[in-house]
């Protein structure tokens, strides 16, 4: 039986023929246009610095007794400028699988959408849903084929399939790790601190969501490139459900309310004659 290896092909092959890679405007370009230069890496470095694609983030996900919790902030920064406070960093691949976005926003948006298409094609071809293992492998293979070309993606694929809850970390270097607890992004060290110290396997859904919310909040507090709204999603046997979306400014005063500090002596008004 011939193995179906079509899943290993990327939808947009890397190198086209030497002539103009688009035969006509009618078709999708058969490959990415590359600059004609001898110094590809130098060009990419300069292009990235000039174009300053939006990035900067905190995302996290963990498996616990009831399923998977996925959480992220919503800030996108271009250099030192905040380009958006309302970016959707948790991408709904299908009703039972979520992907998170960290790194280059365009890279993550494009390749997650591409992954959603591939997952749907798999369902149609095989008459059953794709597993989290399979989906993460599809993405990892695509990213590996672009290794070294400057893609910036650090994503987690979280879902519930026939084997139960699944969580994989996939990045643009071609890494793919199965795990129970991950945090990705510029704010991840801060999130790990809170997440690791508060984690227990047997938490209720509310406790787990609160842990995720606090971890994101603390990361946004200390990391300038993270902020906006902390979204928390839960993935269970019936699919994913958005549990909360809270502005991190409001969360600050919720966790650390302003208390009037007692004074030893109060200044009183002196009547002016």
């Amino acid at each position, binding site marked *: 039986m011939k193995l179906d290896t079509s899943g290993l092909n990327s939808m947009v092959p890397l190198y086209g023929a030497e002539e103009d890679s688009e035969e006509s405007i009618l078709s999708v370009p058969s490959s*990415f246009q*590359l600059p004609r230069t001898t110094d590809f890496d130098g060009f990419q470095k300069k292009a990235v610095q000039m*174009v300053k694609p939006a990035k900067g983030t905190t995302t996290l996900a963990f498996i616990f007794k009831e399923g998977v919790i996925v959480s992220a902030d*919503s800030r996108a920064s*271009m250099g030192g400028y905040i380009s958006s406070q309302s970016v959707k960093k948790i991408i709904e691949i299908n009703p039972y699988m979520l992907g998170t976005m960290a790194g280059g*926003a*365009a890279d993550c948006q494009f390749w997650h959408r591409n992954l959603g298409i591939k997952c749907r094609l798999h369902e149609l071809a095989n008459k059953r849903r794709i597993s989290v293992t399979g989906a993460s492998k599809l993405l990892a293979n695509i990213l590996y084929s672009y290794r070294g070309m400057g893609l910036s993606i650090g994503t987690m694929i979280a879902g519930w399939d026939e084997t139960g809850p699944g969580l994989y970390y996939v990045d643009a270097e071609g890494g793919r790790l199965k795990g129970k607890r991950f945090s990705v992004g510029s704010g991840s060290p801060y999130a790990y601190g809170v997440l690791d110290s508060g984690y227990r396997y047997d938490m209720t859904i509310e406790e787990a969501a609160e842990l995720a919310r606090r971890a994101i909040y603390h990361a946004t507090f200390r990391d300038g490139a993270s902020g906006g709204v902390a979204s928390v999603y839960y993935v269970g046997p019936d699919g994913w459900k958005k549990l909360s979306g809270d502005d991190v400014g409001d969360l600050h005063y919720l966790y650390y309310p302003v208390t009037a500090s007692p004074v030893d002596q109060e200044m009183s008004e002196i009547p002016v004659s």
Partner: protein
Amino acid sequence: MGSRFNPYDNNGGTCVAIAGVDYCVVAADMRMSTGYNILTRNYSKICQLAEKSILASSGFQADVKALQKNLSARHLIYQHQHNKQMSCPAMAQLLSNTLYYKRFFPYYAFNVLGGLDSEGKGCVFTYDAVGSYERVGYSAQGTGSSLIIPVLDNQLKSPSPLLLPAKDAVTPLSEGEAIDLVKDVFASATERDIYTGDQLEVVVMNASGIRREYVSLRKD
């Protein structure tokens, strides 16, 4: 070894778009510069791609022109194949993919797409140079954007769509108020950004159609 051919240049300029309940305002200045020189005071950065989609782009105008031509051609093909105009959200996705296909040799174009969605509500999509995009209520891109966005945030910012439980958006401006706001922010940006000025082109789209207005800005 020293100086190789640089395929990019920045022609400056600023673009703004504001979405209302049943209208959309897209505006851009008309100055085209290179370095410290002004090439022309009368260059339009705005292009109508479809019946309900207007694209405004600042950055490298040669790339912008190529991008506009590419999208117009793709829209014509869509019309031939589907016998209808592309909706604004569909055009938004097409623009994102077109930008990303040049991920390794980007279009140096900072885009704002404005128009009306299929329900007739105003919609604005904002992009970075490689295609990441987001539907927003207002946006500014270009050399004057960091001068303009704080003012728009102050006047127009509404609760984030990511909040749960969802909060109602603040009462939006009327069409006349939005146009006045756009004129004011460009006047301010012209004062402090050397690449913005000369003339302002304002395009307003609503249920009754499209109209265009020109406003003079400082020429210094």
